[in-house]
């Protein structure tokens, strides 16, 4: 089987993959990649000397590198970029321009701004390889079922939706501590997931108005309310915050109103309320949520499996850089409308 974007015309059954950035997400993807049958984790790259020293004990069959340029010596088919968001653009650009790998997986969000995202799309296109961004909610069984129902027009004409993304990550930090700022803003960190799901469900969206607030310290993006419009008469509202004390785990969800009824979906369940037409509810349990290896959430395994399958089989995998860049566009619009740019 020929690997997408590879200059090697011969058949390849096993992909050599590298991971750049060994934080929480890098470790998670490394583990999953290591259990996939047609993947070999051959290199891990991290700037931290401490991480590399521990990593050498943990990744016995992979090379531990301190610089992405050194990946050129390893010969990899694909690279996972799981570093902080501001570095995505520079790392991807280096990987593409030095022809280190034609296939790239980048954790969300694709870039720090839309200009960078556009350039990354162009580079991905030129490489001829597979590109993907880690919007894992698309691989959640409840969201997949919800999208199927919307595609089947189970709700009739969709009028509006309300989307939320909440967590308690910074609900109890000291005011002015600045730790929230170190993780970027809530729009990218939390909001981007639900924005991507909305774009996947409804197509292109434009921001009409936005309010971004600082709670933990001045200048931090801690919560956001966004009004958007979509195709036709569609109206949407996003509520995003990482300062909601009662949300032990990050939670995402959408309520969609249509001419036939209401659909409610979150990570756990999906409810279709068609009024007199009846109420149906599906939990993860009802939607075949098992995977080959569960780490974190089943969505991560499906996501990595889809990326690998695409490289080996040539099928398009979503979200590509191009698809994901729409989230960057939306976030940038929200910031501009809120006067934050």
């Amino acid at each position, binding site marked *: 089987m020929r690997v997408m974007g590879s200059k090697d015309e011969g058949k390849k059954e096993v992909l050599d993959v590298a991971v750049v950035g060994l*934080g*929480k997400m890098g*470790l998670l993807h*490394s*583990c*999953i990649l*290591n*259990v996939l049958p047609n993947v070999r984790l051959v290199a891990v790259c991290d700037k*931290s000397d*401490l*991480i590399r*020293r*521990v990593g*050498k*004990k*943990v*990744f*016995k069959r992979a090379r531990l590198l301190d610089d992405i340029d050194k990946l050129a010596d390893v010969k990899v088919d694909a690279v996972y970029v799981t570093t902080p968001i501001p570095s995505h653009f520079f790392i991807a650009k280096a990987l593409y321009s030095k022809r280190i790998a034609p296939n790239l997986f980048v954790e969300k969000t694709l870039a720090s701004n839309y200009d960078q995202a556009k350039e990354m799309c162009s580079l991905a296109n030129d490489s001829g390889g597979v590109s993907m961004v880690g919007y894992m909610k698309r691989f959640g069984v409840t969201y997949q079922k919800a999208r199927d129902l919307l595609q089947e027009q189970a709700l009739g004409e969709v009028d509006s939706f309300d989307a939320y993304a909440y967590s308690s*990550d*910074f609900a*109890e*930090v000291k005011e002015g501590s600045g*730790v929230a700022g*170190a*993780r970027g803003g809530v729009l990218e960190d939390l909001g981007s997931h639900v924005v991507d799901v909305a774009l996947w469900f409804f197509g292109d969206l434009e921001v009409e108005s936005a309010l971004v607030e600082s709670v933990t310290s001045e200048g931090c993006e801690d919560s956001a309310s966004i009004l958007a419009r979509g195709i036709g008469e569609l109206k949407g509202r996003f509520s995003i915050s990482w300062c909601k004390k*009662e*949300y*032990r*785990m990050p*939670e995402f969800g959408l309520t969609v109103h249509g001419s036939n009824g209401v659909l409610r979906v*979150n*990570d*756990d*369940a999906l409810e279709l309320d068609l009024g007199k037409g009846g109420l149906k509810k599906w*939990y*993860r*349990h009802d939607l075949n*949520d*098992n*995977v*080959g*290896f*569960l*780490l974190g959430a089943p969505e991560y395994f499906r996501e990595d499996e889809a990326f690998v399958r695409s490289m080996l089989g040539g099928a398009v995998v979503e979200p590509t850089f191009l698809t994901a860049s729409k989230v960057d566009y939306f976030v940038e619009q929200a910031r501009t409308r809120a006067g934050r740019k």
Partner: protein
Amino acid sequence: MSGRKPLLLVGDNPFHGISHLSQERSRTRGDTIGHADFAAGLVMLAVENGADGFMFTASETTLAILEAIRNKGTSKDLRLYPIVPYAYEYVRLATQLGGMSGLARNMAKRVIFSMNMRAMANGLNGVVRMDPAALLKTYVLYEISRIKSKAGRNARLESVLLHEIITEMALALDMDWLIKSYVDFMLKLGITPGFETRNFTYLVAKFRRWNVDFRKVVIATPFNKAGFQMNPSRLDCERALAVVPESNVVAMSILAAGYLKLPEAIEYVQTLSNLKGIVVGVSKERHARETFELLKRRQMNV
């Protein structure tokens, strides 16, 4: 269930506000369930009605519950099965302390302030050699000292289980040396090493390849009629259980996070002859009474 009397344990998920069926449901339960005195009362009520012990993730919440049980003077012979680390607490801490380096500094301080000399010596060794196995031992010693100081002398620390995050990472990255080192270390301490996993089939295959003695370890993993979190499938997990009759497997999520009713949940686990125990969380006094009464009654009829 196996012929011998199965181990019945109370779980702690409701005390942490966890619901794998619906986070919304856990939010609507209210705060009472997390109060140490109330939760301690539930644990002891479950024990009065047939539970043998308490399986919990070691956190500030559960340590307060252990202390409350001790203060009530009811901790005698309570068998403890802690799961470490409480991943949620550490991920959250890492977020608030600015990442892994902040978390590492915080952990070092905690170990030092615990004044556990053995943990400190192990930790120093681990840091100098950057040895994950030594660091894990340090951490486990620290947790054991925390648990013992709260639970008191009467409580019996039967097993310390590695949280699924650690277990799954070790499985995925072929860290047989970490697993073996942990098993040896715990056995020397006189405590049964344990593993929590949601990849039971994978674990059985790896442990057999690594020659881990299933008789000497405890494994907590989901078994339920709905196949919830039984990966890659319910059938595969049942088959894996069938090939390790000597194992000490404690079934968790038997209610599939509230998706199943207790009678049908018990009916299913009764068909699995190699299971050695069950852990169930309870959030109300009525649950504590009825759940363990029913479990005890049904098992006596096996």
